[in-house]
């Protein structure tokens, strides 16, 4: 059951005002707002149920461990992962991809080995690979998007050579909204013996994810975009890849025994979770995923598709707006520039005065911006609680921008 008014009532922040205007929050691509159940879980986690996990035998430690570990099964269900042992907790996508770089790729890659990326990756799926380029001499192979912003899966597969060790692609572009056919890419890459990492930071927010169906080796998600607390996240790792990974961070919790001369490691996934984790964040993350699954991922996707269609129609009706990315199946993410003098920061400043929150800049995707020939765009990114009325507020505010700057 998806009733937009009921859904909006679940998010207390949506009733506040900004600059004297009702908040219109269209910066979901950067981070999403939190439903009351998540806020309650965080308050309860600290207020009533807090202790460190995995360590104590006392009541509170057992309670927090039970709730924290319970999230693993929720994440596995959310991603349709075969086992909760395939899920490693982390602080979000950035840590997840860095872990793959350090724990899996770094020990297996020699100078001139290759990683295939699309040009629309987020910096979190670029910079860790630059580290390997700088430190080990690996080569990053870039695959362009076409004029609509679509990524041809075959172009990605064709970029694979005998030296390719990994394909790392986003499922949904955080700038263009393009949805990538990661299943076809994975099938093609596997046929050539190359593992695939899917950056699900944006994808998992907008559609039901099935890692078993995609068949990918790594699938990374981040809690704060999934209506959960910041500092939470997880990565699905195929068991075959998990067994190839060396521990990335060392510390407590990830070991079995430590002596002066030797160390033995805990079993995965704990082997890759050193130190005290984000306990309460992770518990809240589980509650957020339950909230989304409770609404129904298909319902969320249908609602956002309707928003996308309405926003497309309204934006395309303004001949002084240039929307970047026209993929037919894109998510409800719109990056745009205005004709005339207005810079993206000018636009976002004026929109802010109207209570409309958007992102302005290069969206942590500078190679894509270079490909598009732009320094900066404004981005309106929609979430499950946005409405067509809010699209209208955005359009009115953009018309004011046009009036001010044209």
């Amino acid at each position, binding site marked *: 059951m998806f009733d937009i008014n009921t859904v909006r009532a679940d998010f207390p922040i949506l009733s506040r005002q900004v*600059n004297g205007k009702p908040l219109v929050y269209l910066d979901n691509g950067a981070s999403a707002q939190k439903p009351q159940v998540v806020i309650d879980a965080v308050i309860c986690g600290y207020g009533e149920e807090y202790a460190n996990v995995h360590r104590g035998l006392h009541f509170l430690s057992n309670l927090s461990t039970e709730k924290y570990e319970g999230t693993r099964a929720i994440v596995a269900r959310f991603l349709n992962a075969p086992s909760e042992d395939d899920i490693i907790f982390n602080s979000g996508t950035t840590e997840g991809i860095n872990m793959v770089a350090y724990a899996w790729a770094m020990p297996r890659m020699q100078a001139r080995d290759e990683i295939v990326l699309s040009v629309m990756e987020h910096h979190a799926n670029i910079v860790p690979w630059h580290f390997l380029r700088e430190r080990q001499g690996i080569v990053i192979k870039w695959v362009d998007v076409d004029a609509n912003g679509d990524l041809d899966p075959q172009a990605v597969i064709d970029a694979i050579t005998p030296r390719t060790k990994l394909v790392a692609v986003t499922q949904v572009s955080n700038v263009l909204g393009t949805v990538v056919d990661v299943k076809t890419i994975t099938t093609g890459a596997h046929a050539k013996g190359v593992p695939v990492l899917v950056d699900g930071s944006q994808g998992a927010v907008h559609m039901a994810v099935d890692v078993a169906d995609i068949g990918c080796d790594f699938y990374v998600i981040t809690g704060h975009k999934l209506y959960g607390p910041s500092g939470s996240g997880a990565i699905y790792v195929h068991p075959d890849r998990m067994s190839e990974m060396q521990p990335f961070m060392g510390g407590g919790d990830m070991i079995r025994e430590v002596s002066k001369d030797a160390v033995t490691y805990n079993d995965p996934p704990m082997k890759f979770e050193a130190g005290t984790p984000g306990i309460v964040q992770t518990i809240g993350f589980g509650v957020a995923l339950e909230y989304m699954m409770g609404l129904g991922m298909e319902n969320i996707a249908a609602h956002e598709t309707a928003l996308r269609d309405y926003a497309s129609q309204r934006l395309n009706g303004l001949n002084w707006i240039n929307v970047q990315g026209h993929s037919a199946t894109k998510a409800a993410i719109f990056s745009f520039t205005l004709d005339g*003098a*207005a*810079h*993206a*920061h*000018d636009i976002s*400043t*004026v929109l802010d*005065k109207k209570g409309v929150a958007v992102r*302005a*800049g290069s969206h942590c995707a500078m190679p894509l911006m270079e490909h598009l020939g732009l*320094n*900066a765009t404004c981005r309106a990114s929609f979430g499950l609680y946005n409405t067509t009325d809010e699209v209208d507020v955005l359009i009115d505010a953009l018309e*004011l921008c046009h009036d*001010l*700057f044209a």
Partner: protein
Amino acid sequence: MATEAFEEIAQTFEFFDDWEDRYRHVIDLGRALEPLEDAFKVPATKVDGCASQVWLLPKIADGVFSFRGDSDAMIVRGLIAVLAALYNDVPAGEIAAIDAHAELGRLGLNDHLSAQRSNGVRAMIECIQMTAAQA
């Protein structure tokens, strides 16, 4: 009393009663700002910590401070014009005494000064003050 140029701007702003009119005027000031030649838009003149690109070219001649600046964002260009009115042709020794927060507050623009705002106004003022202090 600030400089004559700034007082003129402040008088104009007194007629505005809502943000839209104030921004319209800031944008007009931005449009009227003489652009910096590309030769001066180099890393050495770029002000760090701005979300948009900002360049600042300060100088001190005969003990008097002045600067030219530019940005790729029009509102920021307007704010540069306001800062130019506030700081230009002021003896370098008097720059530190100018209370930018209070002066911009008179225009209803001091929300641009908070540390969290990445439009660079604060960074520009710091750059201006530092140059003047080195005189």
